[in-house]
């Protein structure tokens, strides 16, 4: 009997994983736009927090760049969804991103000086890596509209550049 249970458990795990994959793959353009916009907004908020807290010039320059660049992409995204007459649609991925970001902002608010700089920059490296992964494997392949896809590809180039910049900065903020 045990012999049957083990494979059954393995199969059901596979089915669950498969269902999760299918759900992820089924994101529509309105949801994809919402996720991309949310991801940008999170980085703008983190940058604003850094500008309010950090006194390190390199960290502040980086934070200004994040605020400026992500605001520019998001402005473009808003103009695009308006043009396409699409209302960005909230979804589980956007909610999970926002929830995690709110927790990070709250915990970094308690840090000061070098401790804050290190935490902010380390998180920027990790965050850009995560978003790059999502853009490459999920959001860009899933986007149906050509203009949305193209804007996401610009976003990927931007996030990749920011990741490199954050990695260089992480090496100098010690």
């Amino acid at each position, binding site marked *: 009997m045990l012999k049957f249970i083990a494979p059954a458990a393995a199969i059901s795990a596979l089915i669950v994983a498969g269902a999760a994959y299918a759900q992820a793959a089924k994101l529509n353009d309105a949801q994809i736009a919402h996720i991309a916009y949310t991801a940008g907004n999170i980085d703008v908020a983190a940058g604003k927090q850094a500008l309010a807290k950090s006194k390190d010039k390199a960290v502040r320059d980086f934070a200004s*760049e994040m605020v*400026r*660049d992500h605001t*520019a*992409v998001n402005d*473009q995204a808003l103009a695009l969804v308006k043009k396409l007459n699409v209302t960005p649609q909230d979804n589980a991925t956007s909610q999970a991103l926002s929830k995690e970001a709110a927790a990070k902002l709250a915990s970094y608010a308690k840090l000061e000086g070098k401790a804050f700089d290190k935490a902010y920059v380390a998180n920027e490296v990790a965050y850009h890596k995560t978003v790059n992964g999502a853009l490459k494997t999920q959001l860009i392949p899933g986007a149906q509209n050509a203009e949305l896809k193209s804007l996401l*590809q*610009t976003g990927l*180039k*931007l996030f*990749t*550049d920011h990741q*490199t*910049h954050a990695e*260089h900065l992480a090496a100098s903020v010690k």
Partner: protein
Amino acid sequence: MSPIPWRVGLIAGAALVAASACSPAAPKTYQVTLHDLMFGPTPPEAHVGDTLEWANNDLFLHSATASDGSFDVELKPGAHVAQPLTKAGTFDFICKYHPGMKGRLVVSP
């Protein structure tokens, strides 16, 4: 029309052609486009006296910043900025905001 002014006109025209053939090449303006976090190609045969026009067709603030400090041009989104080429040499440049963006400019005397 009398034949004399016609002949004078012809000589004057020939003199103009000769003058332009003898003078050095007229200064040129070359455009380098920035798009999607990349610098487009730089001109292959730029000379001192020519002008480079940086055209930022991107959504983002960029710069064209020479590694040796020779120039540092701020390029707002949509901006076209003319840069007279006053110095010969090979200049490696980056965008100081997006250091992944790189280019090389060669200016002959």
